[in-house]
Every structure is written in structure tokens, then in C-alpha cells.
């Protein structure tokens, strides 16, 4: 089958199930592939997923847990997480080695660099021909595309996504052509200046395929310089020109449920950015779905809300049959306890588990495509599981670094920009405002259900026990 060998990345497309009605097009259809980074020896089968990072860390997972307890093989890192300061003072640029060394990333997964987070937070100002509007932990600013190109050369990620020009709103008549123009311009620049031979993913814009047909032609011409495509609208996978089909397709539009993931697999997407992964972890929901599942009389939930008191004494694993570290060693009662005690370990265990559920999901999808039962299995899955994740009832994790004075606490709170930062139009519930008046009056502390964990524990010491 088609194989594209590029500097550093080899994608071997092994199976394409095309022409089915669900895909609705010629080049759609579920695909099986093998993605390998020649230098580092990391390889994995597709369809698969990437994990988002915040400031270089997969939320809740220190490097040892990520390395030892998950099957994450690619993480997505945004340059905007590293460049608060002006250019000469940016620590990551002054690090004697690479981005991988700066964040001490485990060697069993690849680093994918992009200018912005996914999904990006809407900025106050628009992009220009030479710059992208970004948000750092200290505020909005512009990132010169030149600086991004230099960063790709010096930071040497395993994969870099060429910057797309994405406006905040649905583009009007004139904005579309400008998006295409800039995106092509920037890709051309990056290809020319790619001194470190970093494997590049070209963005596919969220526009109709006709609107970017010249750009797609440009991609065909330069296919030898490309290692993959980053789709900002997964539907376009169906209509991509045949010449580009040998490139792996990363979808960066939000597949908010496993059902949507399956639909996109059918469209021919190979690698997924799963926003729901950390979302569900933060919500205290343990994912429980399997592919394809067994149809029962009543539709099953996609996950279990471990905030529920129902699990207070449950010695069951987070999901029945799961073999992840959290399920082998711990049980629902512990996670329930940790959540209600607002202890950070709750989210560590949930993240390890939820990553495992998602890994198993993709492994089962690959098996199903290989067997030729994918369409049928998707129907079973649709009949087995509810459409949506359970409603979020609990409160997400919060940053609760104690601070010596309330004034500082507020300052830190303001400067905080964890991964929970809400993106415009994102599906995430905003965390209720945290109680952070450290020196505050006791009554207020007692009433504040949003008391940060440490303070919670310390308050308990001060105010005594409820009841035995």
C-alpha cells in the first residue's frame, strides 16, 4: 500500500475501507496505518490519539506516570505555553538543548509542536501577515511567524505543525482567501527554512475544499516536504485529493464524544486530538466504554461520575475489566474519597485510567477495521452507549497553591493559566470561582463549598469535626 517516507516520520498506510455509504465520498473510509519516527524508534498504529499538554505536561501526569502507566505516544505542545517573556529572555530558547530536554519529556513518546493550544483561546487581536495572536500565561501578544520558524529549528520537536491562519469567527467572503494565502505563505516559509529537517504537518483549513483547492495543489507539489496533515475540520478528510492520501491525518477539531470519533474514523482520520479526555478526568468521570460493546436492553453510560456517594464503599475498579494501574491497584471508593476531599491524586488516577480506556478504544477500532466489521461494530456501539457523557456534577481540580497573603493569592489566581483555561465556545464548564481568602473569616470558610483542598484540610483542623 501507499507509504510516504519523510525525514524522521514514516507513515505506512496498510488498509483503507473505502466506498462505504457512511463515508459519503470517494477517498473517505476507515484506514489502518503505522506511524513511525525513525530517529527515536517510537511507533504506533493508527487510528490513534495524541495527548494535549499544558506547559509541557500532560495534565495531572508527572513524567514517570506518563511514561510508565500510559500508552500515550504523541503529545501536543503549544509554543505559546513557553514564551511569556520577550525573545532573548525566553528560557526555552536559551536551553542548551531541545524542547524535549527542557520539559524532560519521556523518550517513549513524540513531541508535536504548534504555535497555539488546541482548541486555542480566542485572542483580542487578529493575526497579521507576519504574526499570530497568542495567549501566554501573562496575557495576549503577537507571535512573529519568523519566531515560530526559528523555534522549530532550535527546539527540534519530533513534528511541527505549520501555522494556520484561523480567524475568531466564521470567515466572511474576503477572509477565506486571506486565510488560504497566509497559510500557504507561512508553510512555504517554514519548508524553506526548515534547517533542522523537522517533520512538518500542513494545516488544512476549516473552509470548503474548493476554497482551498489552490493551496491543496501547492501541498501536492510539495508533498515530499510534508509528513502529515492537520485538519481543522475533520469532514475534509473525505474530500482530500487522492495524491495526499498517503499522508497521516491529524484531526484538531473537537471530537467531543467517542461516537464522533467513530464517525471521523469513517471519514479517514488517523490521529485524534481528544479534548474530552482531560475534560472527563477533570469532571471526576471515569470512562467505561469499550468498542464495540454489547447491546443491552438499556443504553449504557459512557462513563461513571465518581463524585457520586454511591461509590463511597465500592471496591470495584474504575471500569470493570480495566487493567490500567489505577484499576489494578485502586478502587472507586478511593477515587470517590479523594474527589470529595479535593485531593489532587484523584485526578492523577482518573487520568491514568481514562487514557487507558481511550487506548483500548482505538486498539479495538483498529481490530475492527482489520476484520472488516467496522461499520457493523459502529452500529453496535451506537446501540450500546448513550450519545453524551454523563452530566458533570462535581467540581474540577483547581490550583490551590497556598499563598502567604490573600493579596498574593489573588494575584497568582489572576496569572494562572492552567489547561482549564476556557476557550471561547468550548464545551468545558467553567469552574466556579474558588474560595481563596486565606485569612478570611471562619464562617465564610465553612460556607465556601469551593474551598481549595489544602485550606479545606487546614480548616478542618481549625474548626473540628463534623460527626462520626
Amino acid at each position, binding site marked *: 500500500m501507499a507509504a510516504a517516507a519523510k525525514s524522521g516520520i514514516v507513515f505506512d498506510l496498510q488498509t483503507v475501507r473505502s466506498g462505504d455509504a457512511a463515508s459519503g465520498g470517494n477517498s473517505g473510509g476507515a484506514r489502518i496505518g503505522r506511524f513511525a519516527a525513525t530517529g527515536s524508534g517510537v511507533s504506533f498504529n493508527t487510528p490513534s490519539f495524541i495527548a494535549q499538554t*499544558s*506547559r*509541557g*505536561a500532560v*495534565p*495531572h*501526569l*508527572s*513524567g*514517570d*506516570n506518563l511514561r*510508565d*502507566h500510559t*500508552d500515550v505516544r504523541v503529545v501536543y505542545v503549544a509554543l505559546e505555553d*513557553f514564551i511569556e517573556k520577550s525573545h532573548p529572555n525566553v*528560557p526555552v530558547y536559551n536551553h542548551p538543548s531541545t524542547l524535549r*530536554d*527542557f*520539559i*524532560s519529556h519521556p*523518550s517513549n513518546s513524540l513531541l508535536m509542536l504548534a504555535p497555539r493550544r488546541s482548541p486555542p483561546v480566542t485572542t483580542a487581536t487578529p493575526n497579521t501577515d507576519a504574526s499570530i495572536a497568542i495567549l501566554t500565561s501573562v496575557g495576549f501578544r503577537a507571535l512573529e511567524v519568523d519566531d515560530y520558524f526559528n523555534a522549530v529549528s532550535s527546539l527540534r520537536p519530533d513534528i511541527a505543525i505549520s501555522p494556520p491562519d484561523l480567524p475568531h469567527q466564521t470567515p466572511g467572503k474576503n477572509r477565506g482567501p486571506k486565510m488560504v494565502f497566509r497559510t500557504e505563505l507561512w508553510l512555504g516559509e517554514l519548508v524553506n527554512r526548515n534547517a533542522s529537517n523537522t517533520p512538518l504537518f500542513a494545516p488544512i483549513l476549516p473552509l470548503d475544499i474548493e476554497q482551498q483547492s489552490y493551496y491543496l495543489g501547492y501541498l501536492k507539489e510539495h508533498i515530499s516536504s510534508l509528513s502529515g496533515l492537520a485538519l481543522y475540520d475533520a469532514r475534509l478528510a473525505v474530500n482530500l485529493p487522492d495524491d495526499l492520501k498517503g499522508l497521516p491525518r491529524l484531526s484538531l477539531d473537537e471530537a467531543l464524544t467517542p461516537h464522533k470519533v467513530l464517525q471521523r474514523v469513517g471519514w479517514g482520520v488517523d490521529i485524534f486530538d481528544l479534548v474530552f479526555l482531560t475534560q472527563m478526568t477533570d469532571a471526576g468521570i471515569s470512562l467505561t466504554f469499550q468498542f464495540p460493546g454489547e447491546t443491552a436492553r438499556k443504553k449504557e453510560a459512557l462513563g461513571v461520575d465518581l463524585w457520586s456517594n454511591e461509590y*463511597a*464503599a465500592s*471496591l470495584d475498579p474504575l471500569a470493570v475489566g480495566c487493567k*490500567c*494501574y489505577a484499576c489494578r*491497584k*485502586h478502587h472507586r*471508593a*478511593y477515587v470517590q*474519597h479523594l474527589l*470529595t*476531599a479535593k*485531593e*489532587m*491524586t484523584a*485526578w*492523577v488516577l482518573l487520568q491514568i485510567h481514562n487514557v487507558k480506556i481511550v487506548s483500548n478504544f482505538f486498539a479495538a477500532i483498529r481490530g475492527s477495521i482489520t476484520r472488516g466489521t467496522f461499520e457493523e461494530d459502529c452500529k453496535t456501539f451506537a446501540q450500546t452507549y448513550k450519545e453524551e457523557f454523563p452530566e458533570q456534577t462535581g467540581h474540577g481540580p483547581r*490550583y490551590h*497553591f*497556598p*499563598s502567604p497573603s490573600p493579596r498574593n493569592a489573588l494575584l497568582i489566581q489572576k*496569572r*494562572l493559566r*492552567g*489547561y482549564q483555561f476556557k476557550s471561547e465556545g468550548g464545551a468545558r464548564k467553567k469552574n466556579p470561582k474558588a474560595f481563596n481568602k486565606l485569612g478570611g473569616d*471562619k464562617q465564610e470558610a*465553612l460556607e465556601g463549598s469551593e474551598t481549595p483542598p*489544602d485550606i479545606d*484540610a487546614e*480548616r*478542618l*483542623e*481549625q*474548626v*473540628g*469535626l*463534623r*460527626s*462520626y
Partner: protein
Amino acid sequence: PSALKYELIARCSTTKARASVLRLPHGPVETPLFMPVATQGTLKGLTPEQLESVGCRLCLNNTYHLGLRPGQIVLDKIGGAHKLQSWSHNILTGEFQMVSLLQLATVTEKGVEFLSPHDGTPMLLTPEHSISLQHSIGSDIIMQLDDVIVTTSPDEKRMREAMDRSIRWLDRCVEEHLKGDSYAERQNLFCIIQGGLDLGMRKECCEEMVKRDTPGIAIGGLSGGEAKDEYCKVVDTCTSLLPDGKPRYVMGVGYPEDLVVSIALGADMFDCVWGTRTARFGNAITSSGVLNLRNAIYAEDFRAVDPECQCPVCRPLDSPAPPLLNSTINPPSYASAPRGDDSYTGRGLGITKAYIHHLAAKETVGAHLLTMHNVAFLLSLMNKARIAIVEDRYPAFLREFFFKWYSGDKGKYPTWAVDALRGVGVDLLQGESEV
């Protein structure tokens, strides 16, 4: 009755420092020992195996917090705190820092009365109830309920009352502990010496409590606002009166200087939340003192948090886990996992100060990493002290520790430490520096 065995291994020929193996129901530990505080059944973002990986085999849970959440009924259903948190090693529980409770609590002979933080109804915690809760928790070492007054209280009458009451409450705790299901064969009750800063009262309390013959003895009420030289006098006085064959636990102490001095004064066991709490402020404990990694000077410091540290955070990326801190303790639970399993490896992470600076106060992972390092540092410091005692070079160890901690500036050595150590035959300011 006792569910522990205290084996004295070595004694410093100059100071009162001792090294021992303490055999507990969930495996042996070695003293001097620092015990990290996992208040609510977890150590601030660390998995139990991360805690094991730095050599911890005895951690603390708080009876109050577990009594509140998940509560005694759930604890009974689950089968105790070891099962709750999947911790196969030892647990110590107590009602720590009752001092801080006093603003809102009334102490009567029956027990400590609180107002419920939820509905304001009065609640009563009695010595019997405290023991019953700790039976449900199933901790290897349980602490008596005591009446604690801040050591700096000028009210001598109240201090005496608290001391006398703590003795009476010990009797009630012992009685409760000996009732029923042979708890005393699985759990060790420690008494807590009170008496504030009054050495006479401490002496009296020691004598009374030693008579009760508990498997271990704690020195309580300290680590408040008292002057350090007063603190040292209390520890020194108590250890001189306590029997040789039992572990001595100084509650609430965990600052490195305090630890090494207290060891010289004859204390064996310590606990403190400082090391883990300070990690969440971005503070790293290193052999050259405490560094606040949120400070801009670390933004481009691409060296390990503490280059001398052997913890997973500080060791180079993917470097294999070193042998256990000491050979007596049980191997970590993950060591017996089948090959190919996605089990914990304890391999190095190669984290730099710059990366912690980048994460600090913004991502919880930064706090997890520093928490792990700080606990590792304190456990490793205790281990080094122990080896020095066994090799009978504890005075040299002390000089070396202070020299590094103050980067060679003897002028900065605290007077209280110099004086306290002089009292046990070590002059920090004399003699050759070790570094």
C-alpha cells in the same frame, strides 16, 4: 502488649543519637525516621508507588480527617485505611495539632467538644472514640487522645491540668485499646508526653507515662511558637528519662536543621507537613538549603533540583532506579509486577530547576514533582544520618550538614543549634569542615 519490636542497632559514642530497626505489622522501618504526612489518605498528588519509590514505608494519616471523610462506617466496610489507599506498608494515625483546635473547642474531662462546622451542633471526641476510630482505620501506630496547650501559654495551672488530663486520657485509651478484638496485637498505642516548656512537668509526665508501658512514646505539644533552645531542652530532658528499648517520636518536627539536632538529642521518629506544603509554594529542599524555584533566578537554571539527590525527579532521564535506601525495608509493591506490565519503574525524570520554575504555581504536575523530591530529600537525609550513626561519625555528619546548609558560612549557624549540640558534645564551630 505490643505489636512492634525495637532493635537498637547502634549508638553514637558522642551524642545521644541512636539507630534502630523498628519492626511493625506492615514491615520494618529504620530510625532515625521521617514520616511524610498523607492527611486524607494521600500525599498531595502522589500515587502510593511514587511514595514507595523514594523509600517511604511508614506514613501518617489523620484520624480527624478520615473520621470525617470517608467516615467510620465506610472505613469499616472497606476494611481500613490500608485498603482505602492501597498502601501495603505502615500507617501512623493521630489527632494532630489539637492546639489549633482550641479556639473553637472546649476541653472537658469527658473529651474535646467541638461545634459542628456544618450545623453548629456540639460534637464530642472522647479518648474512647478516638481509639475506636483508629481501630477502624487499622493503623500500625495509633496515638492517644491528648489535651494540648500551646507551649508558650503563660497559664501554668492550665498547663498542669492538660498534662494530668493527658495521663488520665492515656489510661482510658489503653483500656479501650485492650478491649475486644485483640487490637493491641495488631496496633501499637503510643502515649504523648505533655507539659509545655516546664521541664519539671515534662519529667513528671515522662515518669507517669513510662509506667503505662506503651510500645512507643511521643513527645507532644512542641513545634509551636516556642524558642528553639527551649524546644531542645524539652527533647533533651524527655529522652534522658525515657527507656532505651522504645522508639521516641517527636511530633510535628520536620525542618532539616531541627531533625538532625533532635536526632543528636536522642529522638528517633518525626513527622511534619512542612516539606510537602512548602513544595506547593515552589520550595525545594536541597543540601544547600531551601530554594524557592519560583524565583526568576531559576528560570534558566538547567541543573537538577538537587544534583546530589537520588530521587526520580533529580536523577537523569530514564536512569535506572538505585537500590533501596536501606536493605532492611520491604521492596516496593511494584517491584513484584510481572514483566511487560505497565508498572512503575522508578526510573529517572531528569527534571531541572528551570522546568519546575516553568510549571510552578501553574500546573499541579510541578507541585507533584517537588513534593516527591522534598519527601525523598527528608527520607534520604534520615538515611544518611542513620549510616553516620552506625559508622559512629555522627558529629562529623552534623558539621558537614550545617556547613553545606549554610554554604560554608559558619557565622550564619543558629545559636540554638550550636548550643544544643555543644550540650551533647559536638562543637559545630570547631574542627575541620568536611566539605
